[in-house]
């Protein structure tokens, strides 16, 4: 077995992510008396995905999510926080978060396991294309060894034979401006993204070249929680995801008023945030903000700003202070009453935090985050041929390079379960186990 990685650093986007992990029927749900099931998780995924999702793939992820979580926790030894997060668009709290709020620990655990098992990871080895036999079966890959991203012409071409099969896990293409513009001309170079520089399309394109079926390539996801005061993913995103949007309000600085259910799916929120004339900011109270373990870092880097009084905040950010005070008062009253009449936000059964001083503020700007589309696979992670709708022998795929699981919108915390569920299926099937 051999893992090849284009970049000088292993891990890709997963190592940068927040590492959120949705698991239906999670052990902590039982402890909290939360009723959940793979069917309910699948229903949430369909709803967010506007029904464009491929049903058998959704079911595979939802049904496999718990097993994937237990594998990470028990076999890889990843340490997760001991409370569940209620992510936007999920009908119940079902999301685990790594104790350090970063996906890097999951990747690290995998790399440690690879080292222990003696599985080599060849860095700076880029995918060039597949090698097929006369019958069209994938029997290896042509790669560029000693590749220096993104220098074209660096390295030298090598052929690697695969005795049993090849698993394509080359991720999305948010950083591939030319490729993304083909599918959505609006996504030009000026658009910021949370992705690492190597998130480009060549792996996907290699599969398309040998006849793989493209699915939903023009469906991208904007993350509604990134900061305009930081580049890329930054340090404040997980603050906004885990406590900001959960316990705070998103307001339009131009009016001082809320404009969306802060826990809607990512697509709905992003669309509202970029509506003409809006200037979205997130305000969360002191007690809730302190729930986030890395708050000090966010403050230190200026991505989260703290104010003693609302007037101070309003003055600094040029917000109508009377309107803002009214908004917070109204929201705090909704919390007491347990119903958000304005936007129908689920206030939940978990602890509620009023928005009170000191106030914490994040100036938001949605950034390109995820490619919902990719190549088509079946529930056995086999890549399907465009013309014949049959598996291309010897080729499996998993993760963001595949399409169809999420449809129009991916729910938070579902990407990593998807990667692990299909990654394990692909591995087993490719090995012929």
């Amino acid at each position, binding site marked *: 077995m051999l893992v090849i990685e284009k970049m*000088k*650093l*292993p*891990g890709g986007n997963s*190592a*940068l992510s927040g590492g959120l992990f949705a698991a239906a029927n999670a052990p902590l749900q039982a402890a909290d008396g939360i009723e959940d099931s793979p069917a309910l998780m699948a229903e949430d995924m369909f709803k967010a995905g506007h029904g464009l999702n491929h049903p058998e793939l959704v079911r595979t992820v939802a049904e496999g999510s718990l097993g994937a979580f237990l594998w990470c926790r028990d076999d890889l030894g990843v340490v997760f926080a001991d409370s569940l997060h209620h992510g936007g668009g999920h009908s119940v709290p079902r999301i685990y978060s790594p104790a350090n709020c*970063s996906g*890097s620990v999951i*990747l*690290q655990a995998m*790399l*440690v396991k*690879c*080292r222990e098992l003696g599985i080599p990871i060849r860095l700076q080895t880029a995918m060039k294309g597949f090698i097929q036999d006369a019958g069209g079966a994938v029997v290896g890959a042509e790669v560029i060894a000693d590749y220096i991203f993104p220098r074209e012409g660096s390295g030298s071409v090598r052929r690697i034979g695969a005795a049993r099969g090849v698993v394509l896990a080359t991720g999305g293409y948010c950083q591939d401006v030319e490729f993304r513009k083909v599918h959505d001309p609006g996504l030009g170079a000026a658009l910021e993204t949370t992705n*690492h520089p190597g998130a480009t399309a060549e792996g996907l394109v290699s599969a398309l070249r040998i006849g793989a079926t493209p699915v939903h390539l023009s469906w991208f996801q904007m993350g509604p929680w990134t900061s305009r005061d930081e580049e*890329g*993913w*930054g*340090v404040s995103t997980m603050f906004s995801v885990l406590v900001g949007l959960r316990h705070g309000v998103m307001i339009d600085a131009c009016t001082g008023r809320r404009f969306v259910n802060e826990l809607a799916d990512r697509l709905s929120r992003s669309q509202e945030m970029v509506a003409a004339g809006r200037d979205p900011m997130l305000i969360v109270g002191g007690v809730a903000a302190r729930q986030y373990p*890395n708050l*000090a*870092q966010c403050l*230190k880097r200026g991505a989260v700003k703290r104010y003693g009084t609302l007037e101070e905040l309003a003055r600094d950010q040029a917000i109508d202070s009377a309107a803002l005070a009214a908004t917070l008062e109204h929201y705090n009253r909704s919390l007491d009453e347990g119903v958000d009449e304005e936007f129908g936000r689920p206030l939940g059964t978990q602890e509620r935090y009023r928005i009170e001083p000191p106030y914490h503020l994040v100036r938001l700007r949605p950034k390109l985050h995820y490619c919902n589309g990719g190549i088509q696979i079946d529930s056995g992670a086999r890549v399907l041929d465009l013309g014949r709708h049959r598996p291309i022998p010897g080729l499996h795929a998993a993760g963001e390079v595949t399409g169809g699981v999420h449809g129009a919108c991916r729910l938070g915390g579902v990407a990593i379960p998807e990667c692990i569920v299909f990654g394990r299926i692909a591995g087993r099937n490719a090995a012929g186990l």
Partner: protein
Amino acid sequence: MEQRWASFDASIGQELFEATSDLILVTDPQGVILRTNRKAGRVLADAPTLGLPFWVRLGLPCDTLRGALDVCAAQVPRFTSEALQAAFAIRLVALGDGSAPGFLVLLSETTGPFLQRTELERQVKERAEALARSQKMLQTVFQGVGKGIILVDEDMEVIGSNQKACETFGIHPENIQGAHIRSLCDGPGQEAVLGMLDTIVENQVMSAEVTALYFDKSSFPAVFTVSLITVEGSRLWIIITEDISRQKEMEQQLKTGKVQTEEANIALRNVLKSIQLEQEEHSAKLSRRITGDLVPILHKIRSAPTAEVRNGYIDFLGELLASLTRGAGPQMDFALHRLSKTEMKICNFILAGFSTKEICATMNLAFDTVQTHRKNIRRKLGLSGSAGVSLHGYLNSRKVAVGA
């Protein structure tokens, strides 16, 4: 009381009249200039001013007071002083209410602030560009330098790093930021690094060899070199990191090579010693034979009674002499002495089991050079043409034979 206020107002008016940055012309009801403030006097000094209608002096596009009033009501007319390269906006204020006792013509300079702003903008732009250039240069040096650079703040957290540092530790830039410096080395390494950060002062450089950790928790030897700077009252440590695994590996190789060379040297010295002994033995034997066999025969020849007997002894002497050179002593003993110093060294390495490649690397010779030496050695040892005999085998067997 009223009068006091009036004189107070008048003195304020006079103050303002001179203190303002505007040019002020005071006219009579017909618009003829009666007086100016000092600033106006200076600006308009290039031509007569007093006694002229203001529209004439300021060059407004009209010929009458009515016309001037219309021009000023419709727009803000400009007056340009070419001598001063300054432009002024003209405003007209009627004095009194209704039955105007005259007018105030106010000229506000528009060019000064404008020019100042333009100049300021130009300076800001220039400085911003210079800053961007130096930042770019600094960034290029920061990223391009062959070693890892990590910046650590007072919380012992990484607040910045270059790409090389990320590669050294296998951690993405986003993840190394905010990481505690401890997470980059093992227990003793942490102590060493924290100790340096704790004790170092400005203008000092400290460094330590530590066991560092890669992202997959494998370890590697590294050197951490620490210095300290103070930025806006806060201490900031600069740690230069270098993965020295390759260096360590080479050191190890060198050590092993040295030990092997020493062993080979000893072996060759033994060989030479044995050869010398054998040579001495051979000389002794030769001398014994000369004194024991040849000298007595020479005596016998001298005292031989007949020519026949003498000839018999001479024949015998011939045979004895021939036997002295036949199969006496190994040929190699002499052959070895014909080898050059370099060839001897190479024999040494061959004897120690080095491959030609390894000999090249160790002696810093080209492959072809070593091959030529090997050929010469074979020739000198009389092995040319005997392809079946390996040099290593031959040298080894000689060593054993001589030793035995």
